[in-house]
């Protein structure tokens, strides 16, 4: 499968694809961007932009916990921590004690502080700073396979759960009255987001992962009239900015992640203007 995709990419008359790492990076982008485009629609729908941002930040703590307990593969500790963190945040968010953005902010800063404190002990932080910006050029075929797997899982989950999640976001009491398992779906969604964020954070980076989740969906929202257009535009914008960003980063010699976000941001502003012009 991977070899096949590799051969197809070889046929393309693109100079930068001569390097294997660029080939892998492109494959990864072709998986991550549609994934983020799809997830982003719901994150924007349900006003969870800040929530997913906090999740990204918890990667530090997850890694720190892994280092502290001497877990060899910090991926595992990062994912475990993120899942727990996401469920906890979700629980507090629905308690309505304090306004939810305040709660999220408190927990987000706390987890970053704990993570940084542990990781910077003995002046070792530079070892982990790659997590901040990410490096998609270092991705390996095995990791691409696991990303592909989670794309499939997400698509299946989407087909089963999208209607419910959509309904919950619009009015959860109404969703409940229709027999939609509100709590279950809500928690399943944040767990999925937590897993995906943790699986892709090494390649995308803590600082910009949220931009990749939010921007394509936000741009699509500017011009879409219904859910089909929303998803279609979001995935198209996401993939387009991913591929263009990667190519630009190669020729301009800039890190791939930020380039990708720049392209997506420009598209956001174009769609924003388009809406102002056409819809008033």
């Amino acid at each position, binding site marked *: 499968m991977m070899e096949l995709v590799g051969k197809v990419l070889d046929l393309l008359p693109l100079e930068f694809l001569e390097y294997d790492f660029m080939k892998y990076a492109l494959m990864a982008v072709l998986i991550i961007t549609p994934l983020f485009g799809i997830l982003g*629609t719901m994150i924007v*729908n349900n006003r969870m932009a800040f929530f997913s941002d906090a999740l990204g930040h918890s990667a530090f703590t997850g890694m720190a916990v892994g280092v502290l307990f001497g877990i060899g593969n910090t991926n595992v500790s990062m994912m475990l921590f993120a899942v727990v963190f996401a469920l906890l945040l979700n629980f507090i968010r629905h308690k309505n004690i304090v306004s939810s953005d305040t709660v999220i902010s408190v927990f987000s800063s706390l987890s970053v502080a704990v993570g940084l404190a542990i990781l910077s002990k003995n002046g070792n932080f530079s070892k982990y700073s790659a997590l901040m910006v990410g490096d998609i050029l270092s991705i390996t075929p095995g990791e691409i396979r696991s990303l592909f797997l989670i794309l499939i899982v997400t698509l299946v989950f*989407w*087909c*089963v759960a*999208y*209607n*419910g999640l*959509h*309904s919950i*976001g*619009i*009015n959860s*009491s*109404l*969703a*409940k*009255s*229709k027999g*939609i398992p509100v709590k279950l779906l809500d928690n399943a969604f944040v767990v999925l987001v937590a897993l995906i964020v943790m699986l892709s954070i090494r390649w995308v980076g803590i600082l910009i992962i949220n931009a990749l989740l939010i921007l394509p969906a936000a741009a*699509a*929202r*500017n011009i*879409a*009239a*219904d*859910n*089909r*257009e*929303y*998803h279609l535009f979001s995935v198209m914008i996401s993939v387009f900015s991913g591929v263009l960003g990667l190519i630009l980063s190669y020729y301009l010699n800039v890190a791939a992640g930020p380039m990708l976000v720049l392209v997506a941001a420009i598209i956001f502003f174009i769609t924003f203007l388009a*809406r102002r012009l056409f*819809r008033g």
Partner: protein
Amino acid sequence: MKKEMKPDGRGTQGIRIKGNFVEEEKQAVYKKNVYKKLLKIKPCGFHRVVIDKLRVKAGTTTILENVSLSIACGALTVIIGKNGAGKSTLIKSILKEVSYEGLIEFRDLKDNTIGNLRVGYVPQHLNIEKNAPVSVYDLVAAYTTNVPVFLRKSRKLYEEIRERLSLFDGETLIDKQVGDLSGGELQRVLLTIACTPVPNLLILDEPVSGIDRNGRKLFYKILNELKQQYDMSIILVSHDLELTAEYADSVVLLDRTVLKEGKAKEVMASEEFREVFGYLGTLPEHKGGGE
């Protein structure tokens, strides 16, 4: 069968240019068939939603206490009370969104069996902004079916939803964006969702704003028709005492517990009613009260 719901006077039959007559007739036949298919279980009068000694606490404060009601099918029961009286908590208990002590069940008085209570709910407002990419089709399909709304539309489902909407004269709304609907239009779409499938108990939270006086009146008229056509109980939380007096079959005055219950006239003439609402022109004889 005589049945013409034209909530805003510009329904499909409202404005017709000459020459469109055939089209109009076709539409009438189409509607008639829809009604035949979807309606027609007349209220029997034996179904009751029974609430017994309901008690809801939040922390140490008691929000509702000793609330006992029996709500009949084929009747419009209106709940009134000032802000913070526990009206929305009562609704949340019936929707099982808050935990409560006591009993809420659906009973058939004919043979005294207990059935499954299927609740239809019309919320006060939706969490949806002006430009949200959600069409009426998306909204209805997402709430009432498992057909994923982000994929291609299903022709069959589209037709089905159009039929459902047409019960409330909303078939022309199907492709509109939800954010662009007027208050009255949205209410009709929400009624469609609440009545798919037909519930035993329809609970409505009347919006305080966004719908003008005429719109509200038409809304009450729709409810009036609903209760005659379907076998269901209707509970309405109302902020409009004047219309309540006109349309309610029974009125419940709530303030932590049931203060007074009965026909609209009785309740509104009662001492309890006066204590809650005062004399500030809220009696139905007076103009423009109670909002």
